């Protein structure tokens, strides 16, 4: 179906501010008398605070207030504390201090005396699982979503059976299976089996998470950096200890998040608490790059083992996967669940067993990072597919295609329960990509030598869920005929806040120039929207905006019928007018309808609102009531299955066997994201996701000193995200562009799998250039390549993590 706006490029309204420097990020706001906050972080990986002596610091000139752990609400076990009396990683905040300026705050911080009692610590999950291994937190070492905080130790026998380099497989809190895995392995033509490690890596959004706050007239005002506006508000209010109505939250721009700023987080709360202590005086916490490392989360690492069985046609008949997740010091994110789910949908195994255990370590807290679990699954498992393809003599695209869900998701199954999906076109993505990339011809050059360089090819797929339902939409036609689209989704930089707003314009047939997006803070009368994370926006927000615009449309038709006679369905919308279908002379402009709505009151002008909307939306409707025609609705459209975002990546590299360096000669990413809403925005996601994936595959990782528990990859130059010179000047993209039936205009999200397919493809290509060498480790760094090329042993043990 041809749309006027959907599928067309446009200029997102915040771009001018971004290129002129007028875009205001959290750290850019100023208020009179703003005090500076600084935080004292733990110098030890795990310790008990015995005493804090603030007397010297508090006596210093310019010191205004202090906060210690007792002053703040402490979370349950393995929660993320705002300030902690049992710091469990180097850098964890213990004390905060506010002073007239940052220099004074820093000076005062240096005068604080803290007595710490060192506690046992651990940076390797497997160490913690040993019979006498240390616990990262007092009282336990295992926790997770639906997994209680507990101590788990595996037996000496578990470790002995695994041998020095094998993965011990002791008892785990997460286990599921479907089909007869053992029988399938017995019958398999080829079985491949490997252990693997996936490193943790820092999010390191370019904007450190500065925050500021003040109190005025009983309300707390916070400027924060988050991917989500409406969704972050209740959580932030709760952490501050107030009701949502007492919180004014402004988050206009977010300088990158990648999951690390998904919603509200403890550091964002600190200025509000400090300001309260100072009688409401504005206070800013300016966060440094190092503090961003300590407090900005990281992708969870894994140690794992996988065994895959194939029949001779290349169909995956059995999968058995066991993973140990590195949580850092908090419950973190359920990457472990996502590993299993991703394998189940991308490869559609006929039978599968999945076991997982999330383990605490004294490293920074882990959070969701772009494709949390799903992208690690791609990096860990895709190379095994290559190994199987080689043993079976099947082309590497073919083996993926044989197993991929396609044809819109017919027969596709998802997860432990083998449930349905709304749409899936991975087979099509692989086919389109192979054709556009000219895979079958080109990949014949695999292994070709040119001096010290060898050609390598890689292909891989990835998944993330891509949509939710049940949130609210809110639009307003003002008497000047403009459509105000209220969106609470946040501004991460994908521009989907704007492309999904265009759905409302599309439904009403509005010219885009006559639309205004209202966003950026709770002052903008936001509807209750889901957060901008989890690749969901293009599905979820299309539905809410569709629902709100449809409500507005119905009201426009009703008003015209009331004014001009007849019934609502005698009318249609055309060029921002309501026109009688049978008589073009009978018409009313949207502007006049908006004026009439104000006269009519009731549901038309927002004086009444639907009962099923969220209180946040209801308050926003009340705030707008009487100012125009209000379209408001909860998204009650059916959503009966998992919405999958799927992607495939194709890559060509030259690998230099002498230097260990690779050069990416070509990359193509293909997306199954339903109907393409904003081609340029999609192109940007596919390309930039790939670039982030290249970093994930080959350079980015946590490094901790095992003896002292200190991090050694804090700064950007140590964490090594990719630069201009590490990636090709141009990357290719394509999309299947077929609709998801449960999205009103057919769109679904894509932001995450476009990273995982690229990182895994690059890993596969490096391996391919080395004749199928299995590194079983992400990232594959330069010295590993040199060792492999020279036939030398690696400097790490197979399951060593965090300290390689």
């Amino acid at each position: 179906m041809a749309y006027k706006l959907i599928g067309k490029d446009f200029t997102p309204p915040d771009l001018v501010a971004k290129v002129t420097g007028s875009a205001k990020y959290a750290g850019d706001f100023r208020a009179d008398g703003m005090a500076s906050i600084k935080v004292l972080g733990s110098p030890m990986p795990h310790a008990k605070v015995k005493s804090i002596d603030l007397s010297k610091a508090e006596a210093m000139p310019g010191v205004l207030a202090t906060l210690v752990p007792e002053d703040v609400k402490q979370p349950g076990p393995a929660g993320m504390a705002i300030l902690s009396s049992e710091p469990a990683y180097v850098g964890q905040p213990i004390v905060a201090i506010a002073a007239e300026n940052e220099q004074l705050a820093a000076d005062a911080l240096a005068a604080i005396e803290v007595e710490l009692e060192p506690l046992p610590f651990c940076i390797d999950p497997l160490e913690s699982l040993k019979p006498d291994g240390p616990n990262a937190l007092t009282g336990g070492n295992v926790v997770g979503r639906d997994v209680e905080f507990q101590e788990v130790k595996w037996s000496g026998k578990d470790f002995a059976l695994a041998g020095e380099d094998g993965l011990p497989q002791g008892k785990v809190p997460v286990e599921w299976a479907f089909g007869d895995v053992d029988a399938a392995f017995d019958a398999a033509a080829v079985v491949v089996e490997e252990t693997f490690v996936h490193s943790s890596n820092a999010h390191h959004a370019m904007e450190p998470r500065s925050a500021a706050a003040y109190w005025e007239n009983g309300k707390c005002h916070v400027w924060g950096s988050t991917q989500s506006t409406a969704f972050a508000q209740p959580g932030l209010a709760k952490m501050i200890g107030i009701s949502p109505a007492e919180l004014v939250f402004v988050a206009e721009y977010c300088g990158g998040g990648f999951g690390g700023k998904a919603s509200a987080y403890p550091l964002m709360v600190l200025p509000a608490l400090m300001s309260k202590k100072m009688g409401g005086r504005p206070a800013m916490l300016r966060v440094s790059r190092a503090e961003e490392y300590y407090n900005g989360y990281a992708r969870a690492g894994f140690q794992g083992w996988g065994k895959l069985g194939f029949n001779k046609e290349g169909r995956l008949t059995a999968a058995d996967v066991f993973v140990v997740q590195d949580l850092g010091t908090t419950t973190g994110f359920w990457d472990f669940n996502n590993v299993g789910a991703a394998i189940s949908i991308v490869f559609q195994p006929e039978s599968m067993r999945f076991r997982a255990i999330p383990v605490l370590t004294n490293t920074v807290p882990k959070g969701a990072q772009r494709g949390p679990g799903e992208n690690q699954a791609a990096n860990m498992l895709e190379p095994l597919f290559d190994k199987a393809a080689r043993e079976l003599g099947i082309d590497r695209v073919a083996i993926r295609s044989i197993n991929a869900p396609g044809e819109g998701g017919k027969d596709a199954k998802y997860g432990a329960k083998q449930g349905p999906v709304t749409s899936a076109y991975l087979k099509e993505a692989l086919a389109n990509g192979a054709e556009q990339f000219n895979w079958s011809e080109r990949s014949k050059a695999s292994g070709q030598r040119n001096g010290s360089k060898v050609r390598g090819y890689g292909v891989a797929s990835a998944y993330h869920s891509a949509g939710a339902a049940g949130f609210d939409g809110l639009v307003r036609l003002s008497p000047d005929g403009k459509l105000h689209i209220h969106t609470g989704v946040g501004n991460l930089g994908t521009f989907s806040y704007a492309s999904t707003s265009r759905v409302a314009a599309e439904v009403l047939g509005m010219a885009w120039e006559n639309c205004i997006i209202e966003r950026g803070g709770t002052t903008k009368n936001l509807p209750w929207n889901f957060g901008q994370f989890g690749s969901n926006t293009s599905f979820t927000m299309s539905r809410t905006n569709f629902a709100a615009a449809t409500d507005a449309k119905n009201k426009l038709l009703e008003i015209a019928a009331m004014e001009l006679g007849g019934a609502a369905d005698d009318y249609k919308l055309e060029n921002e007018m309501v026109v009688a279908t049978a008589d073009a002379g009978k018409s009313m402009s949207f502007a006049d309808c908006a004026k009439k709505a104000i006269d009519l009151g009731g549901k038309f002008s927002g004086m009444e609102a639907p009962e099923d909307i969220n209180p946040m939306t209801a308050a926003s409707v009340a705030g707008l009531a009487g100012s125009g025609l209000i379209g408001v609705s909860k998204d009650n459209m059916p959503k009966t299955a998992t919405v999958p975002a799927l992607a495939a990546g194709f890559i060509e590299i030259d690998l230099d066997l002498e230097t260990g360096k690779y050069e990416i000669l070509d990359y193509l990413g293909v997306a199954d994201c339903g109907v393409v809403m904003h081609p340029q925005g999609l192109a940007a996601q596919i390309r930039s996701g790939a670039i982030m994936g290249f970093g994930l595959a080959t350079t980015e990782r946590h490094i901790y000193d095992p003896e002292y528990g200190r991090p050694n990859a804090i700064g950007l130059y140590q964490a090594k995200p990719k630069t201009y010179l590490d990636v090709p000047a141009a990357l290719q993209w394509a999309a299947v562009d077929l609709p998801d039936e449960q999205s009103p205009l057919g769109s679904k999200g894509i932001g995450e799998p476009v990273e995982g397919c690229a990182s895994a493809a690059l890993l596969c290509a490096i391996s391919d250039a080395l004749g199928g060498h299995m590194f079983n480790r992400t990232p594959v760094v330069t010295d590993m390549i040199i060792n492999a090329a020279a036939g030398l042993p690696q400097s790490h043990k197979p399951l060593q993590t965090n300290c390689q």
Partner: protein
Amino acid sequence: MNEDLMPYDPTVDYTGEPAIKEITPDGSKHIPPWKPLNLTRRRFLQGVVCSGIAVSSTAILFTSGTRPARADARAVERLITLNVNGRKRNVDVAPNETLAHTLRYGLNLIGTKVGCNRAECGACAVMADGVSIYSCSTLTHRIKNKSITTIEGIADSDGTLHPVQQAFIDELGPQCGFCTPGQVVTAVSFLKENPNPTVDEARMAMSGNLCRCGAYDHYLKGVMKASEKV
């Protein structure tokens, strides 16, 4: 040698004794000895400005994130006139103050971003006499005689965007936008120097500007497009 330019000396422990005392518990197997970190941002600055008495009333510093060092700053003429975006601005500048800090906190030119504060990312890029520099790693006093152009001074005074800005919009360069001011400034300065670059030259010139969102491809297309117009 001008004392303002004295290099950081890594052999000097500028922090003195750690204030945190260790208590050794009985029977603990893992006792991490606490040692001060070797190089913090502030020690770097202190290496540059090695003694003094004045404490800035506006100082905003970055520290290692664990514990800052004692502040020291040299007494110099603090009130200076800076030429920023074609205007003369009087501003109070501490001797150890970086240009990024002066711009953001002294002059409220918040378009200049600080991503790392240690010459790793380029988010803070501004032009000094037309050359792109990292303002986070430049002391304001050192460049007080140069003409500074920040992101706020790139577009015409009537609001007409510079071709680089327009091209970045057309090519959807920015994502989160936090690196964008630095990318714009570096591109503008580069195209002044080399108005007809090859893609590889542009890539080289831009390589001091990180983009965590990974929008390199789009920015680069923007630079090449703008090169047709400058």
